[in-house]
């Protein structure tokens, strides 16, 4: 089975109903994407499919053949994404387990809504659970990243 992951074409030999998450973690050793609940309820396994967020734990791998998949490893390859930088600047992670999923959802949000309100952030991020309760810092970091991206776009 041929997959496009982080800009590279890779072959994997797995049964077609294997969840994408397990292909990423066990077959491609891309362990930045986490297993949280396994039923699309927590967001820890979020990756991008053609730029939109996707819960990889409930996605059979045959659904994403020949489509562009981006994981947290692919986001920071050419220097930190502004969202990642804001995560550091605002000391967002506490235990850190949810953060790759949070960052993937935040990047998608800013792609769809470059100038999000706090309500937009809550609407986009409410499927990503943080057991440490760092939501206020997540909100601040997303606002900071949004401001930085707008500045880079010359606004």
């Amino acid at each position, binding site marked *: 089975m041929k997959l496009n992951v982080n800009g590279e074409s890779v072959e994997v030999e797995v049964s077609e109903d294997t969840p994408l998450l397990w292909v990423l973690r066990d077959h491609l050793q891309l362990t930045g994407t986490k297993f949280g609940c396994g039923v699309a309820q927590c967001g820890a396994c979020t990756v991008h499919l053609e730029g939109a967020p996707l819960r990889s734990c409930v996605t059979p791998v045959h659904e994403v053949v020949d489509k562009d998949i981006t994981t947290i490893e692919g986001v920071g390859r050419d220097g930190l994404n502004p969202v990642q930088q804001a995560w550091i600047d605002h000391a967002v992670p506490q235990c850190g387990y949810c953060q790759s999923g949070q960052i993937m959802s935040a990047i*998608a949000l800013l792609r*769809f809504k470059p100038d999000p309100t706090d309500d937009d952030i809550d609407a986009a991020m409410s499927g990503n659970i943080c057991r440490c309760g760092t939501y206020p810092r997540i909100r601040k970091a997303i606002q900071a990243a949004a401001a930085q991206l707008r500045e880079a776009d010359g606004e």
Partner: protein
Amino acid sequence: MANRLLFLGILAATAWAADPPTDPTETPVVPPELTVPEAEGLAAFSDIYRVTQSPRCMNCHPAGDAPLQTDLSIPHSMGVTRNSVYVGLMCSTCHRSKGLGHTLPHLPPADPHWRMPDAIQGFQGRTEAELCRQLADPEQTGDRNLDALTEHVRTDHLLMTSWHSGRTPPPISHGALVKRFEAWAAAGGPCPSE
């Protein structure tokens, strides 16, 4: 003056007598023949209404912007609404096309076209008469007349997940629902009074 009136009179008579312009490609509009008695159509709609009020149908046709979930029809977890797509949270983020939800319990049910209908297509909180008028009005059904609505019920695979995703199904079978729609449409889509 008399000549002018005569000319106008002839013109009006000609216009009245002339056949309407015809377009050979256009199918003439003929009122549908009603092949089912009104009482039978009304009885069929009663069953249709019962189905629309089941959680499997109403949960995606709520009165508000938030889809509902479970047999209790509680608002969708994670604050999901029909507007979530505008901030990048798609139905397909969790509801996959042939996701594992088809085969394992407690996973989001799956279909390639998982989505909410337009806000005016809500079922929740409608009386039988209100919902009947709504479904009989193509402006409130995405331009579907009664036949198109019946076809939608017969073939839409998102709708059919209601019967095969392991959750409590609607009160009658999918085949029975299609027959009720056929009967209601064949009766001309009669609606109960309030």
